[in-house]
């Protein structure tokens, strides 16, 4: 049996290669010029993607064949107050470059959306945010030009006092979300 090992998101051995630098919304909202502030967010995301490429290169030269991408590549990407911001178009080339390198090296990549992505939830607003978050991850894979072998890994979620009903809600909601986001 062949066993291949991989690691998650960041390296403790490479210096200055964080793929998840961010800006808090508080700091963002303190900037006087909103357009300029949005450009700053995009600039951070570009650096995060460049660092991701360095991390993938580190994987390649260390024979590491699987790597989990950080969910925090784009700061404030799914923040409610930035719903009118489309970071994907600005970052398309940067994502495409990372994706090309992933295909060239054959490294198996994944995302692990955080524990707020819960398809077992009975609450419509939590479900809405979960779908939005999953779509965000799928969108990043699409910009990288990766197919269904690049996966988003999630948990079933909470049980809300009735495990069976929660499981059924998960199956229903996740199928709906997968159709909506073509997340396979």
């Amino acid at each position, binding site marked *: *049996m*062949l*066993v*291949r*090992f*991989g*690691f*998650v*998101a*960041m*390296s*403790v*051995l490479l210096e200055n290669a964080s793929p998840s630098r961010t800006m808090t919304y508080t700091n963002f909202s303190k900037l006087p010029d909103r357009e300029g502030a949005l450009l700053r967010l995009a600039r951070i995301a570009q650096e995060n993607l460049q660092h991701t490429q360095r991390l993938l290169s*580190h994987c390649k030269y*260390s*024979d*590491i*064949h*699987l790597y*989990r991408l950080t969910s925090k590549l784009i700061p404030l990407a799914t923040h409610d107050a930035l719903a009118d911001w489309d970071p994907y178009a600005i970052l398309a080339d940067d994502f495409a470059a990372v994706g090309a390198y992933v295909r060239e090296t054959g490294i*198996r990549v*994944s995302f692990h959306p955080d524990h707020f992505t819960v398809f077992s939830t009975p609450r419509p607003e939590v479900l809405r945010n979960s779908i939005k978050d*999953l779509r965000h991850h799928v969108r990043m894979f699409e910009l990288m030009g990766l*197919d*269904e*072998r690049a*996966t*988003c*890994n*999630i*948990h*079933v*979620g*909470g*049980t809300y006092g009735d*495990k069976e009903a929660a*499981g059924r809600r*998960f*199956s229903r909601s*996740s*199928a709906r979300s*997968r159709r909506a986001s073509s*997340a*396979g």
Partner: protein
Amino acid sequence: MTLENDDKTFTAAETLAISEEAGVPMVLDIHHHAVNNPEGIAPESLWDRIQRTWREYGWNGLQREAGGVAEGAPSHAPLPPKIHVSTPKSATDPRGHADHVSLEPLLSFLRAIAGSTPAVDVMIEAKRKDEALFKLMDELRAAAEAGAGDIRIVDGASVEIEG
């Protein structure tokens, strides 16, 4: 999409049932299983079914719909199943992740599935990230050199375990 067993709510057996029903591959987290396994199920006893959730997934989306690969479409070998491994941080925080991963109980699990599994990918979830990976590889290398005849080092981050 893949589905992972949880350390508090849905156990490996429950997650597997939902994976099968939804047609989604399951990622087995052996640390989560160790801390959320009220029925005392050995993880390897679920493995054949977990492995099947990966085999039955058509990775280019076409295999599943057409019952075969459409003409001109790239055909992909199924991905190896993926598992997660981490080590409890401490007795008081058994769900937290330690800096590194212990060779055991991972090696025992890998040996238990080696005979029925062509390949498996292992995601290391440790505070010390890539350093934890290299340390684990060092330990596997040391075990092989110390006479563990079923372990062969393939490259800097892969091993072959004889089933």
